[in-house]
């Protein structure tokens, strides 16, 4: 029996529906289930919802929807979640060139764990990573599932510029920088794929609840993909499987 979520005020125009306080795939699945239900039913007065690791932020217009009514809508939607029969699982494949100029910290990460560079690449590319949420900067995915065998502390001194597409490791996390930005993650590779493009609908290639799989490619393959990205002819490989909950 699932416990109902806590509904907490976040000022006069948002409520937080909180399912837990930890990073947990089941908690996260309920957050996304509620978001999907609200997206599908689009109740009047709900402006937008933002899924996070453990809670759903619901922005609403109190001049059009009374908070007591909103609370009822949210709890009713949550109660209906158990009826979800089939969930699609989307896995988005991200081509990555590992090492060299594209992943200047790969050698250090390998040395830190007493592994070869090829070992690190094999381990990093052997997992479907769950996107728990998006945040931090436009298009940035918070990924779960990094192997402890390659978890590595951040750089002592962050770089002032990390190029867009860089794939990094920071402690137990791995992720991709969608745009150029300062950053302290250990960079092990780079994808030629453009993660965020405001002119695209939607502007991102994946969202919370999808999985990411890193596919090692050569620098030559990467350059070819980059050309297709630039001409608008690139679309990532997306695997879709139906998952029947037990």
């Amino acid at each position, binding site marked *: 029996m699932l416990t109902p979520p806590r509904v907490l005020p976040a000022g006069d125009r948002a409520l937080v529906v909180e399912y837990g306080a930890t990073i947990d795939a089941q908690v996260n699945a309920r957050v996304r289930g509620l978001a999907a239900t609200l997206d599908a039913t689009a109740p009047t007065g709900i402006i937008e919802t933002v899924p996070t690791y453990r809670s759903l932020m619901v922005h609403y217009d109190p001049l059009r929807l009374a908070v007591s009514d909103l609370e009822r809508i949210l709890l009713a939607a949550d109660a209906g979640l158990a009826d979800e029969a089939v969930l699609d699982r989307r896995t988005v494949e991200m081509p990555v060139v590992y090492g060299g100029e594209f992943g200047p910290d790969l050698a250090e990460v390998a040395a830190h764990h007493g592994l070869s560079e090829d070992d690190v690449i094999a381990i990093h590319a052997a997992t479907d990573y769950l996107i728990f*949420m998006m945040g931090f900067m436009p298009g940035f995915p918070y990924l779960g599932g990094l192997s402890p065998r390659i978890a590595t502390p951040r750089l002592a001194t962050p770089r002032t510029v990390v190029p867009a597409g860089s794939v990094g490791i920071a402690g137990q996390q791995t992720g991709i920088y969608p745009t150029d930005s300062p950053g302290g993650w250990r960079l092990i590779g780079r994808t030629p794929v453009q993660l965020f493009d405001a002119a695209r609908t939607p502007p991102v290639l994946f969202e919370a609840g999808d999985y990411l799989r890193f596919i090692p490619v050569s620098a030559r393959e990467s350059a070819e993909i980059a050309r297709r990205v630039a001409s608008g002819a690139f679309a990532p490989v997306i695997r879709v499987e139906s998952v029947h909950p037990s």
Partner: protein
Amino acid sequence: MSWIDVLDGGMLTTVQDLGRVGAQKYGVPASGAMDGLALRAANRLVGNADSAACLEMTLSGPELRFGAPVVIALTGADLGALVDGRPTARWQAVSVAAHTVLTCAGVRDGMRAYLAVSGGIDVPPALGSRSTFTRSALGGFEGRALRAGDRIPVGVAAEPPRGPGRRLLRYAVPVYGHAHSLRVVMGPQDDAFTDEGIRTFLAETYTLSTQSDRIGCRFSGPRIAHRTGADIVSDGTTLGSVQVTGDGLPIVLMADRGTTGGYTKIATVTSVDVSRLAQAMPGDRVRFVRIGLDEAHGLLRGAHAWLDAIRQPGTQEEDPAAIYDEDSGAALAAEGYLDLASALGGRLAPSPRPART
């Protein structure tokens, strides 16, 4: 087709509207006007929709030249605006001729002024909004603050432009000053703080730091004690979230905030008082005052009644008694003025008012 030529960008002048809705789930900040009430008021004065884009002008304002005759309105901070060298009325729709130059003599009150033009600033929308998010070069004019040499497109106004002469009653115009009471609704993580920590937050005075910007307003002052720690597993943020980091000091998250955050949030500043905070200058003193959610919604309704009154012919009257002699709608709107005047004056407003019918 009309336009505005930028002769000097000033400290920070950006295109803003009511913000970017629907992309926060992709990690895209909402952005939009820091003082949403002033932006809405400016738009209504010139006859635009609330959602039209304006210029948000910070502290030392820009120097602008209008390319064609337009109706303009200046709201929010008093930057000492001059039209062709002569002082111009704020919170009032004013017709300006082609080639008119707007300059700013220097700030007198507040932090951010809004310039609405009939027809709205007509840059292309990005993800459904014209608001500028400079960090990602998103929206606005080329995704950045305005600078000399820019030519900003202006949309086509209603024919003829509505608005000249429309204004706010004198006593309804906010005066910002340098001491602010910010009403807050407690939560969502107020249970992460000790009783002493909550008392500190609600009893002490905090000073706005120079390290404040469109992302957040930082404060110095007494430390607020957590029960166990400042870090949480990241959850969502909203406009006005009061984050308390490991150093025990509050940061109020503003328009360009990240969509998620990993620090405890003790409370949320009410929407009406976020507009007030947007007008606070570094060094200003702030108190946080706890109110209930119902009361916060009453304040918001009061602010919207104040906005609705701008459209009404009764607002041309200078005598408040004349407003009360009008129909009940106008009387309610006049009460809305008083609500907002008291809200923006930083005093606790009277009890919540019923929604207008």
